[in-house]
């Protein structure tokens, strides 16, 4: 299937630079981090001078730690709610609806959605503080209940809504391109046969874009599972009620200096990501 005439040797040459960079700056530190996960290494204190290998103790402690299991549950909720359901659905809906809209309006909407994705994380956190804070927050003012502290009383809901706002752009882009590749003749046929929008999507569109749905879902799930931005909004609070895994790892590594423990948790996060990827692979194989 080598239509480009590259040949294996040249192909390897093309891939080599990327692999060297990745090998040095990604694989090596990542493996080293995983090694730290089996020690009791700390940044300061006596364990910093003489770290001991503790084997799987860190992993066992993590699994037994209620903070960790809490975090896993919250992360799963976060990924399912904001990525798998939220961004996917909104991204697809926008891609579908915007096909039939005037170009000016379409560009405006797309532009705003993309802006939400491009703005830097710290800036976006401030924007959402302005929306969700008590007393002066926009949402409270609009709904007439300024005394509600959204981030404190509904932390996970706020985070899910925030992440949908933040990340829909990628899904929207992907689905727009995918929909453009659906043969218009089939859509025309469906319309002539009186199919409703839902039926058209289910029977005509979905089979064509199934691979894209899976790719999109995999990427946004991985990105959301590793997203640190919730820390900027709720700092994991109140009382650990929005402490997703990246936030927990950050707090263990930086605030408590427990690098060994944090690395072990990174390993477990990796395993979780692996599980997601395996599910994706299984579904992809089934398609072929």
């Amino acid at each position: 299937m080598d239509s480009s005439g590259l040949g294996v040797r040249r192909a390897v040459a093309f891939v080599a630079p990327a692999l060297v960079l990745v090998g040095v700056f990604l694989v090596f530190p990542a493996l080293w981090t995983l090694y730290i996960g089996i020690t009791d290494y700390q940044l300061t204190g006596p364990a910093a001078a003489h770290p001991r290998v503790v084997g799987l103790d860190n992993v066992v402690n993590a699994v037994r730690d209620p903070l960790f299991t809490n975090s896993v549950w919250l992360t799963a909720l976060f990924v399912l709610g904001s990525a798998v359901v939220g961004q996917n659905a909104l991204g697809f809906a926008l891609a579908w609806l915007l096909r039939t809209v005037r170009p000016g309006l379409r560009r405006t909407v797309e532009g705003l959605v993309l802006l939400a994705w491009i703005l830097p994380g710290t800036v976006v956190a401030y924007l959402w503080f302005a929306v969700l804070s008590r007393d002066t927050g926009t949402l409270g003012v609009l709904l007439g209940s300024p005394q509600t502290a959204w981030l404190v009383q509904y932390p996970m809901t706020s985070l899910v809504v925030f992440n949908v706002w933040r990340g829909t752009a990628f899904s929207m882009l992907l689905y727009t391109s995918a929909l453009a590749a659906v043969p218009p003749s089939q859509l025309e046929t469906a319309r002539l046969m009186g199919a409703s929008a839902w039926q058209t999507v289910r029977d005509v569109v979905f089979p064509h874009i199934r691979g894209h749905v899976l790719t999109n879902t995999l990427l946004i799930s991985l990105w959301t599972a590793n997203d640190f931005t919730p820390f900027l909004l709720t700092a994991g609070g109140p009382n650990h009620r929005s402490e997703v895994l990246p936030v927990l790892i950050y707090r263990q590594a930086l605030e408590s200096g427990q690098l060994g423990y944090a690395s072990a948790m990174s390993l477990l996060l990796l395993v979780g990501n692996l599980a997601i990827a395996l599910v994706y692979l299984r579904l992809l194989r089934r398609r072929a």
Partner: protein
Amino acid sequence: MVRRIGCYVLIAVVLAFFAVPMLWLASAPFDAKPGLGLRWPDWTLANVSATFDHPYALTSLVNSLVLCAIATVVTTVLAALAAYALSRVRIPGRDLLLYLLLLLSSVVTGTAAMVPIFVLMLQLGLINSQFGTALVIAGGMLPAAIFILKDFMDAVPRSYEESARVFGAAPRQVLGHVVLPVARPGVATIFVWAFVNAWGNFLLPFLLLRDVGQQPAAVLLRTLYDEGGSADLSVIPVFSLLYSIPVVALYLFVSKRYGFRFHGGVKS
């Protein structure tokens, strides 16, 4: 007819949903009494001049541009090459390798990897080096970039390349003159994506760039506090606005020239 109205209502709601939070960036920088909420500002330009007076505000933006430009170019070029090769040639273990790298990138972008990265950079003598930091950032982004670009490249019709080869084109020419132009929107998208990611990266520049005159805007934004840790809201909104402008400008530029899509839009 009802469907049309429903469609437009939905779009209006979505429009409001996305636009309202951004209004803070339009009002707070020019507000004499900025707060953590949206309010009609007491118009003033004092915050803007205070920000420009900050000794490192503009320097940090320039640093960000340099750092992110290097990281983005490295990522895009290497990812395009690798994605093309991986798409066209069946290297054994390619899929496995790609997934493995994608997963490992999640470990390295987390905070637990900071000691290994720091010590590694120290040994390589790359502390306090913009180039070194850019390489680390690029390394973290490459797996995802290759993953996405490979999908693009897969979608570029092979008939083009085969035709080109029939006409005697060398592989380099095939890549440069045939494939890239078709895949250009995708490459442009990755370019913007990589730039945006690098632009927001705080931890790596913070650890690896010691001299405050070399630090990018992402780090500086986190330093705009007073001694007790209270946010200095007269400077933060303006700086946030300045911080956001380059990425927006880049997106507008790329979108105008190349279109911001995932496929070339050419029928197979």
